[in-house]
């Protein structure tokens, strides 16, 4: 097969897609979804319509609907991310893909109809090449729509909301990837039955079935990990796995055989992380927590892997003369209370106790304040904040408690008056928390989906590894395409 043939096949696939009425309809729908992102902007202080023609604060808007503004930092970013995920992963990733399955299912049966097949297969091109071109037509169909939707929304939010998350662009690739997996089923069934209806119904059922299998598998895996954790703690092992071992084996076999379409969401999250996050600058020796970078103006000396239980990691900010203006220290200790049979204490109780101690210290200017801010979407910190009378002006102090499993992480910050305003101090602390990553959590304390989302990744153990998930899924699609090739070679037209 020479390059002219390959070029012709892809050009034809492209033309077929552009000519498809459902494709045009879906382009229209994508445009309808994209358009509002160019008209409505989500700003830090509120929502802006038509580039400032009309604006509403989040408070006013939520009050109008009888709600309250959620206590989230960078609300506008959270809203934009929510809309992006809702439309791309929620709408396009489910309903949109179902549409696309139905719209592309006739590509292969139509090619195999009498009259059409005779003309096409009498050309000096291998049958599989022609079939693969039709498979590619389906994938091109979804790729164009996905990239249009994702890129359109990205640009829209960039223009009106000033928000840009380049990692969001990966969503287009993963949508196309999921469809490419499912489309292999459609193609295989189409070759086997030469019926569009059979192809659509089987593919839709398969899409739902694989999703269910994967969700049940995640539940089962989670319960097994929880059981192992319980066993480690010396608690009794739940009997589930032993009684229904054959069911678990069947489930495992299905999971590892079938494409893991639901993993796409976790792949997106992983890809987003890989784009937005760099290698950590510091990793606690127990691998529970890592720090990706430093807040603006702060510098830390020392290696990457540090045992925070033996010595704190310290970030220091200095002025132009080299004098220290602020420091943030991060350390770890056990949060089990030996006086209460080793039960875990909450960060709030640590903060409460700490506030009492600080209050009694002679240098404390006012009564210490306890609150949960600054924090991030992912990390809750119980803070104690107070002022210490100094020889010169006062020093602002903050001490935060963060629980990760049985470990308690403590953030100790002090700001000289030369550092800046209260807002700048808050920003420094928040910037620090943004760089903080909680890498490890036990399954016991998390719902299965959240546990899987946090466990799944590019460097996770093989059962939860993104490369393994993608590799086995692609293998499944390849096997189906080879099966279709085998069947097609035996058809008499």
């Amino acid at each position, binding site marked *: 097969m020479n390059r002219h043939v390959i070029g012709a096949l892809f050009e*034809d696939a492209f033309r077929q897609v552009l000519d498809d009425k459902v494709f045009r309809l879906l382009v229209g729908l994508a445009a309808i979804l994209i358009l509002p992102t160019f008209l409505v902007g989500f700003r830090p202080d509120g929502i802006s319509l038509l580039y400032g023609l009309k604006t509403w604060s989040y408070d006013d808007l939520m009050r109008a609907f009888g709600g309250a503004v959620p206590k989230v930092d960078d609300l506008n970013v959270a809203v934009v991310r929510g809309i992006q995920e809702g439309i791309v992963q929620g709408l396009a990733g489910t309903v949109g893909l179902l549409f696309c399955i139905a719209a592309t299912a006739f590509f292969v049966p139509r090619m195999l109809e009498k009259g059409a097949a*005779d003309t096409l297969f009498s050309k000096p*091109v291998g049958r599989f090449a022609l079939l693969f071109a039709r498979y590619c037509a389906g994938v091109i169909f979804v790729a164009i729509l996905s990239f249009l939707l994702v890129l359109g929304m990205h640009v829209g939010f960039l223009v009106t909301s000033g928000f840009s998350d380049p990692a969001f662009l990966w969503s287009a690739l993963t949508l196309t990837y999921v469809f490419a997996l499912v489309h292999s089923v459609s193609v295989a069934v189409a070759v086997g039955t030469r019926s569009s209806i059979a192809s659509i119904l089987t593919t839709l059922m398969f899409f739902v079935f694989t999703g269910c299998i994967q969700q049940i598998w995640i539940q089962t895996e989670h319960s097994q990990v929880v059981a192992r954790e319980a066993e480690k703690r010396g608690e009794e092992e739940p009997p589930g796995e032993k009684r229904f071992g054959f069911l678990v084996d069947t489930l495992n076999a299905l999971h590892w055989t079938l494409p893991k379409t639901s993993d796409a969401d976790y792949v997106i999250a992983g890809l987003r992380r890989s784009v937005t996050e760099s290698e950590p600058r510091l990793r606690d020796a127990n691998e529970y927590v890592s720090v990706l970078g430093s807040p603006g103006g702060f510098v830390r000396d020392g290696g990457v892997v540090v045992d925070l239980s033996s010595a704190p990691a310290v970030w220091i900010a200095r002025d132009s003369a080299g004098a220290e203006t602020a420091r943030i220290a991060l350390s770890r200790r056990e949060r089990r209370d030996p006086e209460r049979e080793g039960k875990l204490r909450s960060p709030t109780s640590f903060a409460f106790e700490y506030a009492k101690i600080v209050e009694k210290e002679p240098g404390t200017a006012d009564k210490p304040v306890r609150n949960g801010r600054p924090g991030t979407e992912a990390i809750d910190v119980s803070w104690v904040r107070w002022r210490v009378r100094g020889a010169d002006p006062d020093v602002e102090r903050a001490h935060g408690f963060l629980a990760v499993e049985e470990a308690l992480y403590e953030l100790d910050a002090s700001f000289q008056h030369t550092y800046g305003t209260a807002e700048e101090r808050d920003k420094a602390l928040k910037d620090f928390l943004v760089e903080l990553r909680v890498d490890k959590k036990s399954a016991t304390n998390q719902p299965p989906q959240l546990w899987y989302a946090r466990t799944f990744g590019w460097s996770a153990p093989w059962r939860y590894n993104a490369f393994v998930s993608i590799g086995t899924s692609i293998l499944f699609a390849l096997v189906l395409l080879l099966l279709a090739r085998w069947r097609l070679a035996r058809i008499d*037209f």
Partner: protein
Amino acid sequence: MSDAAVLSVRDLRKVYKKPFEKGGIAALDGVSLEVGRGTIFGLLGPNGAGKTTLVKVLLGLVRGHTGEARLFGLEPLDPRSRERVGYLPEAHRLPGHLTGRQLLRLFGRLSGRAPADVDSRVGALLERVGMEKAADRKVREYSKGMQQRIGLAQALVHSPDLVFLDEPTDGVDPVGRAQIRELVLELKRSGVTLFLNSHLLLEVELMCDRVVIMDKGRILREGTIADLTPATGVVRFEIGAPRADLDRVLAGVGANLRVDGATFQLAIGPAELDSAIDRLRAAGVSIRAVEPRRLNLEEAFLDLVRASNSGSPR
């Protein structure tokens, strides 16, 4: 296979089997055939005779046959064997999402031709099949006859040396048919071999050099048109005016006289023909035409097929 042959089949057999059933339907039952370069070869037979199966085996569209089949010396399953072949299937369905021009470009490139090479041929070919005005309309908007014309063009777009045409004038108006016939003859003159499968026997008779008549997967007869349409021994006379006394005038000459106004037929041998003409002239009959009757292709075809169905020896 001889050097001049572009296609040859030897003892070709193909049985369509149904799952879970023994036996099957024998579509080809020991067909042997050879087609030389630059000829127009007609393939005739009733429905289910195996004509289309034979073409499809040669084009690699039907597999699982026994015996030998070769196109330009290559096995049908070898895609290279189809590089120099054009095919217009019966009741073809062309991709409706393309315009006529795009379709020709696609099929030309699928045949391995460079885009520039294809583009240089497309315009002239569209004109040749009378489709230049509709070339930029979608194929799905074409009428039956237009689909047939563009289908013929796609079979020729890569300058093939062998062309299979299955009912090429199906759905085409009389003017179009004449154009297609002219195109076929022009292709023959340029050295292209044509394999014509048509139910329009007059068309076959007008165009084909050699004809094969098939039935039940076997070849009943092969030969030139003249071979297949022998003289019947009947001569048709056309005279100036009806005569009631022809029985008397021609008494003792020929047999089975049938009179129909100013024409009559007589079973007569070549030796007696002069005598019959002499008698007519002597009786003052004005002779306008004398035509020895041959079987036409349709009659020859029907005779053969009927004989095949009744089990008579061929």
